[in-house]
């Protein structure tokens, strides 16, 4: 490892950090200007966050566990299914209307149905997360697969690849740069729905913490919970980006000479 400060400094997203810092400053400043109990400032919220961190950390673990389980399930099922649908338009014409019908059903409305089949424990929540994270993956996988240049598929066919092999060895890598947008959305959705479902039906998790803060009008605590989610989301994003950099190095480099 040749870690050096300067290489870190050049890779670090300075504009992003500065912009976030400015937003946070603006928040603190305007909170002081408004001086309302409805609008606690950054420092106050951070105080609550530090204060409650011992309580929040295990809750966050629960939330993340469910989000991860739901997302992983969705990834394993929907990525292959999406590529299959994208590669098999005849099949797509039957199932896509089904997907479009299910897509806009609010998770709030799915919860009661999920409860009927999965009870009120983690299984119900994970199935709702799975449900919600499925669509970004599915839609992006379908569209990205259809967007693959036909010649690549013909190469695969002429080399005697089977349908499944074409999907795995050609469609997946070729569509991956586009699918990544769906993966990112799906990860965010998994986290979001994990929290939301906890707000609705849970006695644990960050969502429950948020709900409790909302119920008890502890606005600062509510914001502290949101900041905790934000931090976790940013951390996850670092990991996703590392994976993406690894998987899609070829894509980034092949665009290298592009004058953006």
């Amino acid at each position, binding site marked *: 490892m040749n870690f050096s400060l300067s290489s870190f400094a050049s890779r670090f997203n300075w504009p992003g950090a500065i912009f976030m810092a400015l937003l946070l400053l603006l928040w603190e400043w305007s909170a002081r200007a408004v001086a309302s109990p409805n609008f606690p400032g950054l420092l106050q919220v951070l105080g609550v966050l530090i204060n409650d961190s011992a309580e929040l950390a295990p809750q966050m673990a629960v939330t993340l566990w469910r989000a991860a389980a739901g997302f992983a399930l969705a990834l394993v099922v929907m990525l292959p299914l999406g590529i299959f649908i994208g590669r098999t*338009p005849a099949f797509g*014409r039957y199932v896509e*209307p089904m997907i479009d019908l299910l897509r806009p059903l609010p998770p709030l409305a799915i919860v009661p149905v999920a409860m009927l089949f999965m009870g009120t424990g983690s299984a119900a929540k994970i199935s709702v997360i799975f449900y919600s994270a499925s669509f970004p993956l599915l839609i992006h996988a379908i569209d990205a697969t259809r967007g693959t240049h036909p010649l690549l598929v013909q190469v695969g066919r002429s080399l005697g690849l089977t349908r499944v092999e074409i999907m795995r060895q050609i469609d997946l890598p070729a569509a991956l740069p586009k699918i990544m947008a769906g993966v990112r*959305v799906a990860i965010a959705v998994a986290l979001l*729905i994990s*929290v939301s479902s906890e707000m609705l039906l849970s006695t644990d998790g960050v969502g429950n913490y948020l709900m409790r803060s909302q119920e008890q009008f502890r*606005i600062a605590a509510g914001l502290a919970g949101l900041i905790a989610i*934000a931090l976790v989301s940013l951390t996850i994003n670092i990991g996703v980006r590392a994976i993406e950099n690894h998987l899609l190095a070829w894509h980034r480099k092949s665009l290298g000479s592009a004058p*953006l």
Partner: protein
Amino acid sequence: MTATRNNPLRAFLGLAGLLTVWQLIVAARWVPEEYLPGVPAVFGALVEQFSDRAFWVGEALTLLRAIGGLLLATVCGVGVAVLAARFRWVEQALAPLVQIMLSLPPAALVPLSIFALGLGPKLFAFIIWYSAVWVIYLGTNNALRSNEPVQLNMARTFGYGRWETLWRVRLPAAAPEVFTSVRLAAAGALMATVATEMLAGKDGLGFLLYDTAFSLRIPEMFALLLTAGFNGVLLNQAILRMRRYVSGWHEQLSATARA
């Protein structure tokens, strides 16, 4: 046979398949029928709704709100993504914010947004916009960053400036992917509309849903859910039609694989 022509019969068969599975689950009596009514009961309730003026008004309002919010989100999301494509620092500055916003539950923001925006149309607009805009931004941003280098070089040598290249090459090339994310965001917008109507409002499908759930009119509730789903199909078809108009080449090109 080409992918550009959609056969409504197949779509119908697909939906019929879904309903059959549903009815089979009901018939298997996994769960009491009072909580998961069968297809005939739901359709009965749906047909009953048809004679109710509140239903039609609610349906129209929900659709209009969702479409309005989606349009707003599309303009913002694509607009900012274009800016971000042109100026790298904009993209970098926004990256953490977008990531955060994408994963904050709108439900947690509701009391705060009511405080800031009141209960009127502004609240609806904001929540629907919020639940759609980040997805669109992210998708458009992703698409605009993956242009064919040869095309960009070509445009430059023909004298197209950065902005013009953005309009004339990068955006058209990205269009199919942009539509993908708008498609995704449309579902988000519909959900947010219904959720907001459930929370605060006196009309719309969400309001009716809350009401039916409150009074345990389960078949009607499912009928309304079906309507919400149907709205998704409708909106999605509209977007696909628009995509066919804007970048139909894309579908045709991909259809040549099966010549």
